[in-house]
């Protein structure tokens, strides 16, 4: 690991003041479960690390009810989200997603802010070839030329082909989460799905996050009454394994049929993928094997293989189908 300057400020304003204007100057250290690995692999080389774990401000470390909704401080650990009785009761899909993420050790260390801001697991990126993995010699994409078995099947027109890495974010997006970003100059609030961007150039990040900003809060609206929810993850191993495709489904029911649906897919595109197609396919229908299957098919209608990842199209379709079926069968919000 390269040497760096280390700051552990107490005052929030001081923390924000320590952030640089350009990427590379500073990086926020939360749980460190992702950042330290990136630094050891020499992929990210901040000159200054701003450890925010000790920043005061109770809200940053708390789960708080807000007008029937919920505000999650960015420094709350994934473990706390998984264990919270309130979340289990009102946002069970989020609790389940948190329970299934990573390992107990990582859930204890990792923060919700860090989970949202974690960097892609793309093996070209992690091996130092950049977020877009362009071969310097030929100008071609290493992903397209090489081994793309874990890469994007949707939103993969390029030049970015990695998949968005969080298995918790799709559930947050399905619940309609917003996040607050703070800098020394002030704060702004953005819908979580808008926070994720597909970079067009190598020096662009995959988040709408400025180098001098910190994610401070995640706000969830009140869960829609009577909504049914479930998420489904396709993982090869039983635990501690990167998913191959995931889906979070939130169904607002009207009698026996779906009124509206939010279908958010993970690990299939450079951003969490909201499938309007799947939502439309299931809207107005009762949920059964056939309609869920049709929604799955609609979700991947535009999907395209990069060469080695064609199987993921099937997995994504199955994830959507199973999430919808599970939501209708048991899940409730």
């Amino acid at each position: 690991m390269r040497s760096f300057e280390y700051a552990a400020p107490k005052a929030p304003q001081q923390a924000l003041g320590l952030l640089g204007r350009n990427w590379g100057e500073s990086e926020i250290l939360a749980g460190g479960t992702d950042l330290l690995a990136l630094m050891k692999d020499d992929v990210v080389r901040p000159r200054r690390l701003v450890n925010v774990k000790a920043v005061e401000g109770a809200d940053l470390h708390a789960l708080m009810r807000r007008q029937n909704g919920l505000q999650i401080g960015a420094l709350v650990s994934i473990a706390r989200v998984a264990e919270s009785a309130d979340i289990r009761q009102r946002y069970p899909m989020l609790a389940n997603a948190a329970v299934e993420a990573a390992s107990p050790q990582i859930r204890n260390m990792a923060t919700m802010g860090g989970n949202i801001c974690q960097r892609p697991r793309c093996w070209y990126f992690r091996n130092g070839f950049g977020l877009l993995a362009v071969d310097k010699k030929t100008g071609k994409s290493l992903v397209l030329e090489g081994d793309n078995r874990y890469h994007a099947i949707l939103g993969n027109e390029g030049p970015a082909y990695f998949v968005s890495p969080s298995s918790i974010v799709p559930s947050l997006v399905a619940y309609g989460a917003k996040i607050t970003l703070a800098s020394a100059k002030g704060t702004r609030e953005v819908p979580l799905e808008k926070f994720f961007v597909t970079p067009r150039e190598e020096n662009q990040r995959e988040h709408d996050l400025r180098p001098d900003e910190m994610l401070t809060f995640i706000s969830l609206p009140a869960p829609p009454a009577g909504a049914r929810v479930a998420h489904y993850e396709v993982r090869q191993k039983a635990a501690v394994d990167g998913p191959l495709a995931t889906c979070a489904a939130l169904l607002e029911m009207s009698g026996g049929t779906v009124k509206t649906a939010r279908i958010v897919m993970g690990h299939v595109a450079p951003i969490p993928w909201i499938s309007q197609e799947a939502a439309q396919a299931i809207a107005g229908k009762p949920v059964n094997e056939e309609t869920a299957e049709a929604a799955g098919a609609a979700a991947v209608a535009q999907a395209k293989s990069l060469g080695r990842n064609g199987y993921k199209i099937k997995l994504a379709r199955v994830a959507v189908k199973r999430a919808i079926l599970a939501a209708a069968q048991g899940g409730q919000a």
Partner: protein
Amino acid sequence: MPSYAWPPEDQRAYIGKRISRVDGPFKVSGRAKYTYDYNPKGLLYGAVLRSPYAKARIVSIDTSEAEKMPGVKSVHIVQDKGTIIQWAGDDVVALAAVTEDQAEDALRAIKVEWEPLPHFVDDEKQPPAGSGKTSGAMSQDDFVGAISNQMPQGQLIRQLTTDGVSFKVDDEFIKQAKSFSVPQPIIDALQKAPYHPESGDAPRSPYKEVRSETKGDPDSAFKSAEVTSEGVYGATVITHCCMESHGVAAEWPDPDHLVVHISTQSVSSMPGQIAGGLKGQGVNIDAANIRVEQQNVGGGVGSKFQADRWGIYVPMLSRKAGGAPVKVMLERDAELAVAGARPSHFARVKAAASRDGQITAWESEGWGTGGPGGGAAPPLPYVFDVPNQRNRYVSVATNTGPSRAWRAPQHPQAAVITMGALEDLAARLNMNPVELIRKNIGLVTEARRQIYLDELDIADKMMAWSSRWHPRGQGGNGSMMQGLGLSLHTWGGRGHASNCDLSIHPDGSVDIKMGTQDLGTGTRTTILIVAADTLGIPMEQITLNIGDSSYPTSGGSGGSTTIGGVSSSTRRAAVDARDALFAKVAPGLDTSPEKLVARGGRIFVEGDASKSLTWKQACAKLGAMPITVQGKNPGPENLTNSGVGGVQMADVSVDTETGIVKVNKMVAVQDCGLVIDLKTAESQVLGALIMGVSYALYEEKIHDPTTGIVLNDNMEFYRLAGLGDIPEMQVHMMTGKGYDERGVIGLAEPPTVSPGAAISNAVANAIGVRVPFIPLTPDRVLAALEGQKGAQA
């Protein structure tokens, strides 16, 4: 003449019982020290600059700036300018500094100018028909590359002899080769190599036929065959994934003595290997003045027999730093990229049988890679010696980290290919594979026919195979399908050469010194069991010292040779020491030594209570001097043997919508002659099953076609089975009559052979179609299912 023979069952206090590992508490409490834990005062941290290219010539190396960096104490060029690197991650420059960060910073100050060369890493594609007859003459670069990349001597000589060289081998070149300690047989072959200047520097084909054999008359046998089955089978390259990575710490207490801590499977051979390597660096030290220590090793799996490049350059770094201790442990990415690979083996197989299931013909067209040197052919067909057979194998030279022995070298791949092909044949015959095996047991070597039949019966009961087996594709309705599969395997396992010193002290204590190592298999425990059983005293009364090259030499722990070796040398030492003690005490008891027995902490004449001493009283009669004897293997009366058989069965579920395989249950039935410790033996088999589930479903070393680097050089994408992936496991060891009298036989390799094949067969049984290669990842399983649908459409 004393009798060394193993005691009969009714006279064993420990042998064959379930005894917990003596070092278990030390390991689980963190008190056991590994090479990784060796951190003496003043330790310098080593760091290594590795090749970013899979194939490239080093044009120049400039370390001047790095040498001036703060904290840097020594720099050593491992591979100098002019060298052609053959795999990404290979060691180029090593240095040592006061802190880890200083060492890493200094690495970044080294300037290497590279000339990247075209590389080749694709081993899964079947070589074009007819390829491999010749790979073309070797250029000078090829030759230098082969030497610096440790191509196996036999293979290099064969290549020089058959393909020749494209450059003039003059006296100057020979002189140079000798100065690089190129072995004489290679020099001889080089001088005799045919000269083919016309090949110039044209790149050599990566393909080389290494086996082409025909037995019987396969052509007519296939022509007259009633049923034939064809398929493609194989296993990709995997790594060893030792929990403790490879690494070395070295220091020179004075310029003529070297002390080395190294993570190794072969303590006794290290001084010689290291002395030889240092000689190549211009440092002359006698092996006798090198001391190697290692108390514990975090796994080897076959990858830790060599001193390796780091076993030489770490002592060099220490020497250049005035003898201060220097340590290099490979980081996980390097460990995965360069320090362990099991070769891939693939094959297109055709097999034929009569309608009643008699196997008549076999043909295999195989290929695979063991790294830059290509590799050897696996033993095909495995276990079953089909009367009419043709086998061809083309080795594929790739720019990937060279292969190393991996638990039961070549056998797991051979089992996947053979047992897969036979299971497919059974499916064609509409036959239960157990029945196919029984029908063809005559094709198995005679010594093991009955063993396999007995084991099949037991496995059948443990798995309830007969009542649960169903024909292919009838594994259920809906998306979850269930299936059963089986495989057979074999291994040698005769004990290696082993020596030990055993002393009985006048105070009754006993110590044993042996230059062996305990890979985690229970070697310490079994040595103590044998000694305690022979001397008739508790295991706790014996102090065992291993893991030091200054102790009597004992073989490397590989090929399942350790248990046979160490138990035999220990038995002989303990019998001789005991008999020497008998001779001392017999006159005082007014009896003759042959009448004495040692049991239960006493020395006595059976049936005569008046002629009895406690062990302590007996030892006190020694006076001032202890008894010290040496035990050896081999030696009088053969105590170890070779050749085992095993049967394994797997029960799996396959989610046909996701291609995810879950192993529900594994059953293993295994023989290994006389079992010394039933508990560690069963543990050995359980460990093999766990490892087997892991390589059957998850493990795969993935190289990037464009850059040639290992893409999954981490524990995230190099998947290993986790707790939740481990099935119910049942082990049955064959013991008692017919087995015990064979003597001790090794057990480490055999149970690792079959899991891949058994699981692959179970998946085929579940989903009705063969998934050609392991690991059985979702993409491969779904592709096979798609293919099946395509074929039906």
